[in-house]
């Protein structure tokens, strides 16, 4: 008899194709939207992750802290407070003792004994907006970096053409440079830049390599860079002053936190910082940044999912509405069925199956629509489908059919045969 009930239900749906189709459409849109929007949220969060990874993996960036405040964010505020109190009692430590980061600091961090979790250390000086020219063509390089070869690996910057500069180039202070893609295109156009000379602030550099394209991340064009050996940049552009940062690469992703404490320990010792004094440097941990951003992007995904869930709910109410209309319209038929001996369960089953088939069909089509829709790029984001969202959306749509179909179906089943038959 179950089979019969199923057949009656399908028959009932087929009798009103347009109505069934439109009801299905409501669920289709709901389920499709859930899958699609969650995929967009997921895709954008993966994109952000990738952007962060592009900055380098397993890396710590040590920067001088101008205020002496601990941590990055507190610096500006601490300075303001101190200014306001007119240089009175300074709990955070005497400003005069603040030391700059030096190449010696970097060397100390590279010591395998005291810092076993550190894989490589690259001291970095940065000259911003260095004017480069090549045969009359000029280009202002956004970032001109002087560093050690280890920097390429630590900052995840492989070359596409040519080669890296070597430790030998650093030792001898050779004026060689690896340029980013934007620089290469602006200065050389279609010409292969490798082996040619560019002039930066009057000093000639030989291009040895071109970096692989990174794409822009936020406001900055990550390809508008040039990387040269540290002594060469210090000599020609920045002078032999303090370092802008030290990029430390940990041996593995797990070792990043250990490396951070090792680096902190060594620098505290070298800069003479003990408990009461505030550190004059800050350490930016890539992993911390990543987890902060991924948690915020998760919130974003949940938000999108919630909006889509509402449309799924509206689709469910559409099912209730249509089923109520159907039951009212077919009251007489229900009476006939009851008069010839249909048990309550059969009537209940028939209308429940109708509602469930509507929602299941809508759900399946919605999954198809969501999957197909996710193949296209949506406002610059390539959606990435979360498999569990498919299972969830489909499950919810079936549950909606049962739940929202339950009320009208129950109403149909409870009708007294004589009342149902008298219904016009």
């Amino acid at each position, binding site marked *: *008899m179950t089979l*019969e009930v199923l057949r009656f239900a399908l*028959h009932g749906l087929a*009798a009103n194709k347009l109505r069934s189709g439109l009801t299905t459409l409501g669920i289709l849109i709901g389920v499709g939207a859930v899958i699609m929007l969650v995929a967009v949220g997921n895709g954008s969060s993966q994109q952000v992750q990738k952007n962060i990874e592009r900055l380098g993996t397993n890396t710590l960036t040590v920067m001088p802290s101008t205020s002496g405040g601990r941590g990055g964010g507190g610096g500006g505020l601490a300075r303001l407070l101190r200014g306001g109190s007119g240089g009175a009692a300074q709990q955070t430590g005497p400003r005069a003792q603040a030391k700059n980061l030096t190449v010696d600091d970097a060397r100390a961090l590279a010591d395998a004994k005291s810092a076993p979790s550190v894989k490589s250390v690259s001291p970095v000086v940065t000259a911003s907006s260095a004017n480069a020219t090549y045969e009359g063509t000029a280009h202002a390089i956004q970032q001109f970096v002087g560093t050690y070869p280890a920097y390429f690996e630590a900052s995840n910057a492989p070359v596409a053409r040519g080669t890296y500069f070597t430790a030998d180039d650093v030792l001898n202070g050779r004026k060689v440079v690896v340029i980013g893609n934007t620089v290469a295109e602006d200065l050389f156009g279609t010409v292969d830049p490798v082996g040619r000379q560019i002039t930066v602030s009057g000093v000639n550099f030989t291009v040895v390599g071109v970096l692989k394209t990174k794409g822009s991340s936020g406001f900055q064009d990550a390809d508008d860079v040039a990387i040269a050996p540290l002594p060469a940049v210090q000599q020609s552009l920045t002078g032999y002053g303090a370092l802008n940062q030290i990029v430390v690469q940990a041996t593995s992703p797990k070792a990043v936190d250990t490396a951070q404490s090792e680096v902190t320990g060594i620098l505290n010792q070298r800069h003479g910082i003990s408990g009461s004094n505030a550190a004059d440097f800050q350490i930016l941990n890539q992993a911390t940044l990543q987890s902060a951003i991924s948690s915020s992007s998760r919130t974003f995904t949940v938000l999108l999912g919630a909006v889509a869930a509402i449309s799924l709910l509206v689709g469910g109410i559409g099912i209730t509405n249509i089923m109520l209309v159907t039951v009212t319209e077919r009251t*007489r*038929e229900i*009476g*006939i*069925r*009851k*008069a*010839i*001996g*249909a*048990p*309550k369960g*059969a009537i209940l089953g028939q209308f429940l199956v109708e509602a469930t088939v509507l929602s299941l069909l809508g759900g399946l089509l919605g999954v198809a629509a969501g999957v197909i829709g996710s193949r296209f790029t949506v406002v610059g984001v390539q959606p990435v489908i979360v498999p569990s969202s498919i299972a969830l959306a489909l499950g919810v749509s079936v549950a909606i059919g049962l739940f929202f179909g339950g009320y009208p179906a129950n109403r149909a089943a409870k009708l*007294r*045969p*004589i009342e149902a*038959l008298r219904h016009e």
Partner: protein
Amino acid sequence: MTTVLDVQDVTKVYGAGDTAVHALRGIRLTVDEGDYVAIMGASGSGKSTLMNILGCLDVPTGGRYLLDGLDVGALDDRRLAVLRNRRIGFVFQSFNLIPRMSALANVELPLAYGGVKAPERRRRALAALAQVGLADRVGHEPNELSGGQQQRIAVARALVTSPALLLADEPTGNLDTRSTEDVLGVLDRLSADGRTIVLITHEDDVAARAKRVIRLVDGRVVEDRRAAPVAGPPPGPAEAEVRNR
């Protein structure tokens, strides 16, 4: 001879208080197996109410009603559904076939709810349709058939489960003379085969075809006349015409 119907002091009241309507004021009635009973009465005499109670579509306000020796008042919803399915075949004035379902599917319907397997169901439905002379119309939907044909399909649906009792509520009320004759002919044949039939009508020539005529006025039985013995055949059209003259 077994008693199929045993109605004991059945009353039915619609509404309550000053506006209460007493549709049935204590009906006593027994119908034996193989009888062909016509219940007559003007509209408002309570004959339809009685029919609905006999068909287990409605419940009496007072009194007892035994069908095949079973007290119907004591049954729950589920058991009532089974009773309607197995013991009663109901023919309505307005046919009440399910639209957009073929004649065969309509006739199969009671068997489907009775849990009969598909091949058996088909065989019995085809036999019932042959019995009402519509074996060639099995694939047609109700709106493709004439009123008389629809009502014969309804009769086939009513008797497909071989019920103890066939109830017909003004089966010819919506039919022209020819179709009426078709349907009455089917009922005559069923009665001759020993089927118990209770029929409601307000037309004398329809009532004349029954073996027994009961007349209702204001919810009471005022006349109970036997026209032919229970065991014998029904009077048939020729004799009915003579009797009506």
